[in-house]
């Protein structure tokens, strides 16, 4: 591959295999996405979607293959270094620090120098304070800034976590089922938030909720099945692909009952 394509691709995954005691959670997976893209990944349970994110963020080491982020091989790097390179991850259930206020949550992540001594001695600078204040407004928690995250509702926690992700100023956002457990209205809010973030970030979103996927999938959708890539294309193409229908509904289109 030539120099140019390496730069345009924010993430490239080559022949990736992850095996847990012989069980292949990911099996020879190839994947790539362009800078600025919002990619939605769907797939039935056990397709390896979460393992896929685990590998990118360094939580799980691949058995084979490699992961290139902005052309740099990130295999073997610990999680915090991958995060500092510019990959942010939102977990399936909102993981915010419950015993800190919303503002403190954001402040912790917006810290520019995350080494021990600067964190101990340096005080938040005005730029970081502005980031935090701006984000609180964006995620609509400015009135609840000094409330412990514990007291926020599920949807508010989801928004807070997305805010924390942005405060990290990553280039690539990994979002794991952001709409899980939300009301329709909250889902739409999250969708709008993701779409507005997609203007300035590359995003990989994993999702089950097809309504939600339709809302946010303007670019390509990738379908995973049994740890391998099943197909890739626009939402319409994917939805009409007989293989996708088969893995999702467990029957071939010839049966005619779908």
């Amino acid at each position: 591959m030539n120099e140019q394509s390496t730069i345009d691709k924010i993430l490239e995954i080559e022949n990736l295999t992850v095996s847990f005691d012989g069980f292949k959670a990911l099996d020879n997976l190839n994947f790539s996405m362009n800078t600025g893209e919002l990619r939605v990944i769907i797939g039935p349970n056990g397709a390896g979607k979460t393992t896929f994110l685990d590998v990118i963020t360094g939580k799980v080491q691949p058995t084979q293959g490699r992961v290139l982020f902005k052309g740099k091989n990130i295999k073997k790097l610990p999680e915090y270094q991958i995060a500092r390179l510019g990959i942010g991850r939102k977990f399936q259930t909102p993981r915010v620090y419950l015993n800190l206020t919303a503002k403190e949550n954001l402040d912790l992540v917006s810290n520019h120098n995350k080494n021990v001594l600067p964190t101990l001695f340096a005080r938040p600078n005005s730029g970081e304070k502005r980031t935090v204040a701006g984000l609180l407004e964006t995620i609509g928690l400015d009135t609840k800034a000094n409330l412990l995250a514990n007291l926020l509702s599920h949807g508010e926690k989801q928004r807070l976590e997305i805010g924390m992700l942005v405060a990290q100023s990553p280039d690539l956002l990994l979002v794991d089922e952001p709409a899980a457990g939300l009301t329709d209205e909250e889902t739409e809010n999250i969708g709008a938030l993701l779409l507005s973030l997609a203007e300035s970030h590359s995003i990989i979103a994993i999702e089950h909720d097809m309504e939600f996927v339709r809302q946010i999938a303007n670019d390509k959708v990738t379908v995973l099945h049994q740890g391998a890539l099943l197909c890739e294309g626009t939402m319409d193409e994917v939805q009409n692909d007989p293989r996708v229908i088969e893995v999702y509904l467990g029957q071939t289109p010839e049966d005619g009952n779908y």
Partner: protein
Amino acid sequence: MNLEIETGIQTKQRKRKNKLLEIGLILAFVIILAVILPIVLPAFRLRLVGRFLSLSIVALGIDLIWGYTGLLSLGHGIFFALGGYALAMHLNLQLPEGKLPDFFTLYGVKELPWIWQPFYSLPVTIIALIVIPGIVAGILGYLVFRNRIKGVYFSILTQAALLVFFNFFNGQQELINGTNGLKTDTETIFGVLASSANAQRAFYLSTVICLVLIYGLCRWLTTGRFGRLLMAIRDDETRVRFSGYNPTGYKVLVFAISGAIAAIAGALYTVQTGIITPSIMQVAFSIEMVIWVAVGGRGTLIGAILGTLLVRLAQTFLSERFPEIWLFFQGALFLIVVTVLPDGIVGWWQNNGWGKLRSLFGFRDRLATYPSIEIDPDVQQEREQITGNKD
């Protein structure tokens, strides 16, 4: 009605008020400890209080590593003993030129072991008694945390380390007098007998000063970003990693500081006890340290101090009154804390425990509206906009 919800200005006002209140309380505490108690209490009692205060210093260290960072260390006896031994070695070396501490002759040791040499000088001793345990804790912590060992495995490892040190110290007759330990009461410091009233008063006052300084240090560490990060590590370490922080460095630093604090406490405790033996590294004692923090309230520095004083004073009082059955009281206290006050005494107070207790008996605070409306920040903000300012 609810303190947790307020505007930025109110937060600042409240913080300033709280700060003043805290400084005032500390001052009052210091005056009581440093001025009033020495007048009121007989020397024997004062020495007891001094020992309890030095134990509350180690509780602060435990609170730092357990209450704030979520790492339950059952091995703080190591650092406590190292500090105690360092100072005891210095005291044992206050001899005429060329003489060795008495116990060496028992084992036929003719020359002072090299490890004793630096302890001739008081400044070196003081630095060593803080730095060496800090380094030991740092190395132990680094080995453990680098491999991402946490939770109960960390506790077990620290306890195993404690046993290693315990057995090692017991076996070193020719070096540190083995199980017999080192006496400090019969030694001199600055030419004064360490057990004399003046020396003991000086030790007592140093304990009060150290307690205040270390409280200040812990307070500084646990507020601000660093302290919030410690709580973040406690609550969700994986998330901390994905935010770009490497928790290992933080945990090692906090464990080292906590070890150094335990060492200072150990030194102060030793000179006010009169002897240090390896039995200070018994498993039960290190567990008791944890219990003090649990009783007072994890994650509240005041709680660590109060818990230690309360448990120890109760032990003294009960063991004098009811020598046969006082252990039952102790057991009951721990059971109550675990079942009724899982957040400890201070934690119970902070969670509006008093208000809840009152409402249990039918004395409830009056509310103007429904609680859920009262505490809704959006509603509060609206109300402020209408009335100008709430105050």
